[in-house]
């Protein structure tokens, strides 16, 4: 078997790439894509831990499915917010959403 740590490293790497996308992209939709990537990394982590520690308990898979569902829902909400902002300000550049600036 491949050692567990390889999966965890993969998940960590994906998470960091996603984090970089969230922090560094200008476009709001791209930020959302980064968030999705982070979530997927978390799911890989979960499934890896499930397969390697308690493969018989179905809860692990269920947990992963739930996280998927949440990710999807959150993506839908996020996109709806972006569409709303776009309709108002005709731009999806995250830097320009600074109404809360001092």
């Amino acid at each position, binding site marked *: 078997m491949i050692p567990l740590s390889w999966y965890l490293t993969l998940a960590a790497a994906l998470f960091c790439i996603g984090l970089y996308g969230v*922090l*560094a992209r200008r476009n709001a939709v791209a*930020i959302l894509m980064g968030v999705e990537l982070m979530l997927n990394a978390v799911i890989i982590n979960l499934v890896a831990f499930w397969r390697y520690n308690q493969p018989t308990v179905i809860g692990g898979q269920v947990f992963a499915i739930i996280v998927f569902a949440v990710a999807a829902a959150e993506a839908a909400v996020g996109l709806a917010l972006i569409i709303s902002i776009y309709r108002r300000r005709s731009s999806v550049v*995250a*830097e320009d*959403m600074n*109404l*809360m*600036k*001092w």
Partner: protein
Amino acid sequence: MQLDLLLWLIPVPPVAAFFIIWLFTNRSRGLSHAVAIVSILISWALSLIVFFNVIGLKDFGKTVIGSSVPWLPTGESVFRMGVLADPLTAVMLFFVPLCCTMIFVYSVGYQNYGKPRDPHDKVGEPPHNGVEPMYSRFFAFLSLFAFGMLTLVVADNLLLMFVGWEIMGLCSYLLIGFWYARNYDDPKKITPRGAAVKAFITTRVGDVVMLLGIAYLYFMTTTEEARHILGKAAGTLSFRDILYNAKFLEYLAEQPSVIVGLSVAALIGIFLFIGTVGKSAQFPLHVWLPDAMEGPTPVSAMIHAAAMVSAGVYAVIRMYPLMSAGWHEGGPLTPPMLAMGAIGAFTALFASTIAVTQRDVKKVLAYSTISQLGFMVAALGIGAYVAAAFHLMTHAFFKALLFLGSGSVIHGVEHGAHHSNEHLDPQDMFNMGGLRKKMPITFWTFLIGGFALAGFPFITAGFWSKDEILADAFANNQIVFYVLVISATLTAFYTMRQIALTFFGEPRTHSAEHASENVWTMTYPLIFLAIFALFSGFVGVPKELAELGFNNFGKFVSATLVEKLNTPEFTIVPMIFSIVAALGGLTLGWLVYGMKPLKAGQKDPLTVLGPIYTLLENKYYFDELYEFIFGRPARWIASVLVYQIMDRTIIDGALTLIARFAYFVGHVFKVTEKYTINDPPDWGLAAPIQWMGRTFRVIQTGRVQNYLLVAMLVVLAFGGVYYLRFIGLLR
């Protein structure tokens, strides 16, 4: 028809008239006076029915007519209110509604009904030649006044009597101040407003003390022993129950009161008498009565003859058993009787001396009233109960006659003044003269009234009643007798003076020349009253002179008391004195004023008395004395003590002080804040905080990604610390 039902109905028509006039017939003059006169006629008719029914009853006095309703339940007892007719009430019912009716009819003419409204007459001032603008109001108030008096007369308990008393006090205020807008140029002359307030307040002083007496009496009826004696009647103030219970009176006469030396009966008697001192204008509360002449003349007649002052004497006569509790004929007088005797006799003399010098025709009559009331009170003081009641009745007749006559004279002179366009005081006797020829009916009736007042022998009512008082005084108390004799002489003197100045001689002014007799509504009441002034005395003739009259009055009225008083044995001496006093006074007056009647501009011959004359003319300066003792301190208390010192200085000062303190605290805070927190930008507290704010707000970029970056960095830092601790490199 049950008599006690009639008694209940007697006071009702006038009060109904009051409301009807006030609410409905206000605008119509004819309707108002018709309502008023019809109402008083109904009362008069009812009173006469009651009167003629009761004088035939056997043993009337021991048995009385009356009924009462339970009015106020108070614990164990029930306070009852009702009506009563005993012999005294019957006498009152005879003359009170009669005089009131005459006054009502007279007022129709006096207030110039029938004449058109003069546009120069202002509302609130006496009319010059048109009809009185407030005509209906006058009749409404007169009706209310009659209601008060009739309530007082038929009341069967002290409280209801007091209610009637107070209603009359109110009406005296309303009626004396009837011409409320009248002002005089002379500041010393009291305006009707001032006179009304003076009347009300002076009688109020008496009323307060009287109420104290009433309350004290009520309290005494509720003590343990009283409950035992009175039984069901405890806790009430009905006359029959309280004053006719000899055991109760004895009990009151023996109980010591809060004042050492006086029994409860004596103290209550004195308090109740003080109410009479106020209402019947005895010394020292006499000052309101002369100034009450500011009211229209029918009001003066009503107040000072028929109603209010009679109420005072009636109250004392009514409460006589209480005041004489513990007294037996020939024994020492009880304290209330002493007080009455002293004050009455003194007032009689005192007022008659002042009346000798007055110029105003109504003021002479006012002082005469005070003096005659003094006679009545003195009579009560020495135990002459019947004589006082008798004089009350005859006095009502002749004094009402005199007042109405004087009003007729004044009216005549005012007519004359209107015709001759003169401006003068129509009430000043020195502006009159010769009215005998111009106003014959007024002259003859006034003469009859004046002679009755003076006590002209045998044919006038005043003679018999005054003689009875003097006879009683002679038998019981010589001092009072001589004081009253002197007073009677002076009475005759000033009466003749008044008649001579007004009617004899030649007219002294143009107004008197053009004076004319008045309408029938004014002269017929005069004639009617004159009949009574002549003939009403014949019911009280002493037994020994039975050829001249009857002695029913004495027997009738003395049945009112439990203990029958003996009439003194008839001696000729007091009668001689009273004849001499009357005739002597009249003659003296005629000699001074009538033989050579005064011409225009001539001074009063009495001014030769010099300083005495001035003293008397200024009423012994009592008004000034009261002003000094009571008026000025009261005004000082009001304007200086309470207003300036207490209100403005103390209370407002305290408030201002608190306000200033709050202001000061605020100022302290402000300065502190200024120097520590706020003001100087370098070293205050505010500036560094502002600097910190300005500096650190740059981290609020509003951009989510920046916030997330910072969050991640912090997470990394914490995570690093924990990881290092986990692997043991950091503790």
